[in-house]
C-alpha cells in the first residue's frame, strides 16, 4: 500500500513537489514569525540582564534604555556629576558605573566607563582593565587584538566623521563574549572621554553619531596620558554623563533607589520593565503578523485542498478502475487519504525546517547588524502547534478520501 502510494506520487512528482513547497512556505512563514518574535524577546532580555537599574536625565525612558543597554547612539541630556557622586555613596548601591558615549573606532562605539562596568559585563577574557587614560578594553566582536592602537573618529566613518588629532587608545584588554551590543563596543576610561570632549561641556549634550557639531576637531588635543583616577569619576564636581548603570544591593534597594531617583532632575528605570512595556506594543504587532501568517496558512490550505480534490475528480476513472478490479472501497479511501496526508505532512515538516532556517538566517543577519544575539529556540509549544496543524491536515485529507470513496466504479467502462 505504502509502495503504491509512493509509486503513484512518483509519477506525479512535479505537481506533488510544488504542493509540498507551497505548504512548506506557508508553514514556514508562521514558524518564522513565532521564532523571530521569541528570539527578539529572549535576546533583548538577556542583553538587559546585567543592567538592573539605569539612571539618566529626564526624557524618554525607552531612549535611555536603548542607549545605555543597546548602545544605540542618540543625543541624551547629561545628568550632572553630583548624581554619580550621590549614587556612589549610597549604601543601597553595590556599584554605579557611568556610560558616556564618545566617538567611534571603526564601526564600534567608544564607551567611557569605569572598571565596575567591566565586571558587570562578565569580566575580561584577555589582558587587563582600564589603568591608564589611553587604555581601551574591546568587546569580544571588535576586530582588534591586544596591543592595537585605536584612533577615535568623531562620528562613524559612514557618517563622515573625522579624526581627533593626537588622540589614540591602546587595546589592553578584551571582554568575554556577552551576546549583547557591548560585544562591539570599545570601553575606555570615562575620564578619557571627558578630556577629549572637554570643550563641549557647555553643549549639555552627550556625543552621538554624526552629531554635526562645528567644533574644530583638527585642533590638536592634549595626548591621553597618566593613570586613571577612578575616584575622580565619583566626585560631585565631575562632568555630567548621559547614563549611569546601577547595581543595587537587593531587590528592595532597587525599588527604593528607583523611587529616590525619579524626579528632581533624574530618571531611574528598570530596563527589564521598559522592555516588557515595549514587548507589549510589539506583542500587538506580533499578533497581527501571526494572524496574517495564519490567514495565509488557511488560504493555502484551502487552495491545496481544492487542488487535491480536483485531482481526485480528474482521476476518478482510475479510482473507479481500482474498484472495478476488486479493490475494497476502504482501501481506496485509505490510499487517497494517505497520499493527501503524506503531501501535507511533508510540507509541514519541511515548513518547520524552512521557518527555523529562516529565523536562524534572520537572527544571524540582525546579530551582525545590531550586535544582539537573538537565540532561535524551539519550545514544546511549537511541537504541539505543528501537531495541531498535522491533525488539521489529517482531517482535511478526509475530504478527498471521501470523494474517492463515493466514486462509483460504473463510469470506468465509458471512455
Amino acid at each position, binding site marked *: *500500500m505504502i509502495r*503504491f502510494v509512493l509509486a503513484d506520487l512518483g509519477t506525479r512528482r512535479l505537481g506533488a513537489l510544488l504542493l509540498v513547497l507551497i505548504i512548506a512556505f506557508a508553514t514556514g512563514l508562521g514558524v518564522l514569525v513565532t521564532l523571530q518574535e521569541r528570539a527578539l524577546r529572549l535576546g533583548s532580555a538577556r542583553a538587559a540582564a546585567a543592567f538592573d537599574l539605569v539612571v539618566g536625565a529626564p526624557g524618554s525612558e525607552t531612549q535611555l534604555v536603548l542607549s545605555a543597554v543597546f548602545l544605540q547612539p542618540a543625543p541624551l541630556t547629561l545628568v550632572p556629576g553630583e548624581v554619580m557622586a550621590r549614587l556612589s555613596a549610597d549604601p543601597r548601591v553595590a556599584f554605579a558605573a557611568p556610560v558616556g558615549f564618545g566617538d567611534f573606532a571603526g564601526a564600534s562605539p567608544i564607551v567611557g566607563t569605569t572598571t565596575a562596568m567591566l565586571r558587570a559585563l562578565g569580566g575580561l577574557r584577555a589582558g587587563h582593565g582600564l589603568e591608564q587614560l589611553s587604555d581601551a578594553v574591546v568587546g569580544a566582536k571588535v576586530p582588534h587584538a591586544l596591543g592595537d592602537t585605536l584612533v577615535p573618529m568623531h562620528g562613524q566613518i559612514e557618517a563622515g566623521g573625522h579624526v581627533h588629532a593626537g588622540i589614540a587608545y591602546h587595546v589592553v584588554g578584551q571582554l568575554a563574549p556577552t551576546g549583547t551590543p557591548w560585544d562591539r563596543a570599545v570601553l575606555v576610561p570615562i575620564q578619557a572621554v571627558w578630556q577629549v570632549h572637554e570643550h563641549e561641556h557647555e553643549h549639555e549634550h552627550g556625543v552621538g553619531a554624526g552629531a554635526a557639531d562645528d567644533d574644530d576637531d583638527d585642533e590638536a588635543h592634549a595626548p591621553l596620558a597618566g593613570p586613571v583616577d577612578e575616584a575622580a569619576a565619583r566626585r560631585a564636581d565631575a562632568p555630567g554623563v548621559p547614563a549611569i548603570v546601577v547595581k543595587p544591593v537587593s531587590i528592595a534597594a532597587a525599588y527604593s533607589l528607583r523611587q529616590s531617583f525619579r524626579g528632581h532632575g533624574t530618571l531611574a528605570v528598570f530596563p527589564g520593565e521598559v522592555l516588557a512595556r515595549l514587548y507589549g506594543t510589539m506583542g500587538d504587532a506580533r499578533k497581527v503578523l501571526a494572524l496574517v501568517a495564519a490567514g495565509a496558512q488557511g488560504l493555502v490550505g484551502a487552495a491545496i485542498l481544492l487542488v487535491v480534490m480536483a485531482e481526485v475528480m480528474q482521476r476518478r476513472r*482510475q479510482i473507479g478502475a481500482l474498484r472495478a478490479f*476488486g479493490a*475494497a472501497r476502504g482501501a481506496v479511501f485509505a490510499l487517497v487519504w494517505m497520499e493527501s496526508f503524506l503531501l501535507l505532512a511533508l510540507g509541514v515538516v519541511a515548513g518547520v525546517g524552512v521557518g527555523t532556517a529562516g529565523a536562524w538566517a534572520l537572527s544571524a543577519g540582525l546579530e551582525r547588524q545590531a550586535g544582539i544575539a537573538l537565540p532561535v529556540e524551539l519550545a514544546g509549544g511549537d511541537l504541539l502547534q505543528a501537531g495541531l496543524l498535522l491533525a488539521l491536515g489529517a482531517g482535511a485529507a478526509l475530504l478527498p478520501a471521501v470523494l474517492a470513496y463515493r466514486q462509483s466504479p460504473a463510469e*470506468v467502462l465509458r471512455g
Partner: protein
Amino acid sequence: MSAPKSAPKSAPKSALAIRDLVVRYPGLDAPALEVPALTLAAGEALLVSGPSGAGKTTFLNAVTGLDGRGQGVVAWDGINLIGLSEGARDRWRAGHVGLVMQDFHLFPALSVRENVMLPQRLARWGRLPPALRTEADALLVRVGLDRPQQRAGTLSRGQKQRTAVARALLCRPGIVVADEPTASLDPVAGHAVAELLVGLAANLGASLIVASHDPVFAARIARHARLEGGRFVTGEGDAA
C-alpha cells in the same frame, strides 16, 4: 459472501440468469437496456455486439454489478446483484469477476507484476499469500510477458492489454468480462489478446462475456447476441 478465496484448482462454475431487467438513465424516456430473459450456462462464452449506444456497456455494468441501478433480476448462481449494496457488490465482484476494458488502467510507475497483483493487494488488508506471486509470474508467462519487473509504463499497447488480461485472471474468477478489449489495439495485437482471453477463460472454466464488434471474437465465440436500442435482437435465449 460465497467467495472462495483460497485459489481453488478449478474455478467455481457461475451461471447467469437475467429476468425482466430494465435499466433507465435519468433524462432518457426509453430504457437504455431491457432484457426480459437471458441465461448463460456456467463456463459458457457470450459475445455481445451492436452499434454504438446500443447498451453494451450498460449490459456489462449490470452483469458485473458495477452499476446497481435497474429493476429485475441479474442473478449469478442465485445471487441477485440488483438489491445488493455497493459494498456487497464490490466484494462479490472481487471474488467472482475478472475485468478487461478498452483502456488498460495500468499504473505506469508500478512493475508489470505489481500491476497484476494490485487488485488483490487492495482487496484485503494484510499480506498477500506468497503463492500469488508465483501464480502471477506464471500467468504473465502464459500471456507472453517474461519480464515481470518491467515498468508498466514502458510496455507496448499489446503488452499492456495482455498484462490487463493476466490481472483479470489472477484470482481465477468464475466470470470473465471484457468491454471492447481489442478496440485500441492493432489487428495483430488484438488477435493475440482475443486468443488469450478466450483460451484462458475456457481453461479456467470461467463464463465469458465479451462486448465487441471485432470479428476476431465472432470466430472464437459460438454464442452471439446482438443489442440494438437497448434490446437483444438475437441470441438472448438459452444456449443453442
